[in-house]
């Protein structure tokens, strides 16, 4: 892995969709059957895992899980029997009764496709020993939506692609991946509106290829985009040196000194600080620390970690700025 890949790849997530044999899928499930699903899966995992019933969480507890990407917004918004099992280190999680009965997932920082699959595969084996999955020899694992049939697997890599976005060449690079059937989605907005320049790259197809094939396709796409991003960064600094440097140093100056900071500003300034680290304009000791910090400063995580109640958006913005000022002293220098 080159230095730059470490910077353009934020995290890797692999998830497997499964349903239990003989129980209607979540869109047709009843409360009792949903409990059977949750019970069987939780029983299989046991020690080292916690089960949360989504209906019993308050808004900020559920929101914090969404911001950590441990559960989906949909699980909170519209799955009446939804619950989640989270591993103690928050790497492994299993959503229950969302779109499918079981959504097993592993999130690791950096590009670790094989490792993430190995972990989720082990989790799947353990659950599979205690519960029989709906499976057809022809179509593989049967899922609520046919787009997930077969392996039920989605391997996604979160990437930071500022130069491809700014130079407006991202779609051109994605287009070159046509044959790989890769999906690209903005995490905080899309295209030129992608304030954090953060995207999720994932496989589109799940049936007719093996899990290893999928990991290979996604890896190829990620490598391709990383290299394209590196070239775009060279091009960017060569053609717009002054404006790029100015934007980076302004972002750093504001983030390090502002008295209040909205979440949108945070996402934008952190993106430019990371770019500044790449160009060695800002001496950032650990780029991953910036990514971790960003998650911990998202609205719900901010509220739950704060040392005082944060009731208004303004109070949150002031507290966020306070955390950023402190954290940047640690991370930069």
């Amino acid at each position, binding site marked *: 892995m080159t230095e730059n890949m470490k910077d353009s790849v934020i995290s890797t997530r692999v998830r497997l969709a499964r349903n239990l044999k003989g129980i209607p899928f979540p869109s*047709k499930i009843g409360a009792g059957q949903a409990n059977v699903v949750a019970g069987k899966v939780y029983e299989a995992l046991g020690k080292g895992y916690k089960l949360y019933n989504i209906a019993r969480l308050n808004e900020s507890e559920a929101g914090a899980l969404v911001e950590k990407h441990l559960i989906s917004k949909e699980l909170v918004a519209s799955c009446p029997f939804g619950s989640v099992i989270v591993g103690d280190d928050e790497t492994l999680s299993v959503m229950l009764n969302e779109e499918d009965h079981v959504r097993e997932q592993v999130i690791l920082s950096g590009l670790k496709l094989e490792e993430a699959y190995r972990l989720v595969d082990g989790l799947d084996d353990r659950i599979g020993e205690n519960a029989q999955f709906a499976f057809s*020899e022809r179509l*593989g694992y049967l899922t609520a939506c046919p787009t997930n049939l077969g392996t039920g697997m989605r391997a996604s890599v979160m990437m930071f692609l500022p130069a491809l976005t700014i130079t407006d060449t991202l779609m051109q690079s994605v287009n070159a991946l046509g044959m790989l059937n890769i999906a690209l989605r903005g995490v905080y*907005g899309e295209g030129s509106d992608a304030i954090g320049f953060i995207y999720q790259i994932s496989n589109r197809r799940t049936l007719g290829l093996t899990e290893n094939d999928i990991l290979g396709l996604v890896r190829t796409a990620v490598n391709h985009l990383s290299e394209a991003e590196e070239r775009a960064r060279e091009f960017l600094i060569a053609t717009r040196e002054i404006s790029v440097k100015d934007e980076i140093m302004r972002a750093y100056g504001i983030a390090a000194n502002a008295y209040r900071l909205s979440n949108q500003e945070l996402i934008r300034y952190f993106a430019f600080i990371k770019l500044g680290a790449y160009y060695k304009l800002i001496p950032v000791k650990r780029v991953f620390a910036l990514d971790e910090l960003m998650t911990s400063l998202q609205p719900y995580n901010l509220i739950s970690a704060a040392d005082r109640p944060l009731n208004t958006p303004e109070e949150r913005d002031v507290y966020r700025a306070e955390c950023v000022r402190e954290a940047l002293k640690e991370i930069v220098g």
Partner: protein
Amino acid sequence: MLCDACKKNEATYHTIRQYNGIKTETHLCSECRRKFVTGGKSDFANAFFSDFSSAFGTAKKKRVCRECGTTEEEFLNTGYVGCENCYKEFANLILPRVSQMQQGLIHVGKMPSVAASTVEGEYARLKAELKKAVDAEDYERAAKINLKLKKLKNESQGV
């Protein structure tokens, strides 16, 4: 940016798809995205699955899954099935679509330990692998898989 479907709420779910140089962007608010996911009839869902409806427009819309009660219309509107039996019940609707969006119609990946332990399951998996090896013109691998298949066949016949 406003939601493409309702044109009222701020869009929070964005997708860009690009096929053969043609870019399509979809921007939805969580409400409309949800409607699409759970099957509330939205213009977006209609547009997305219109090829289902047009291709099978003449088919009867009254078929219902005996296991979960999902109707054909419900499936066409949402793109979601209600249980494993729906895949049998609506096979003629689902399979053409699946073969279009997936890489073929044969699972070649992981199998649950229960299914993999049956001879039939192993046989089906090896057959699929064989087809893949032949498609990839990897004849060395194909020959190896063929041997395994023969062995399995002999074993199951008690030879």
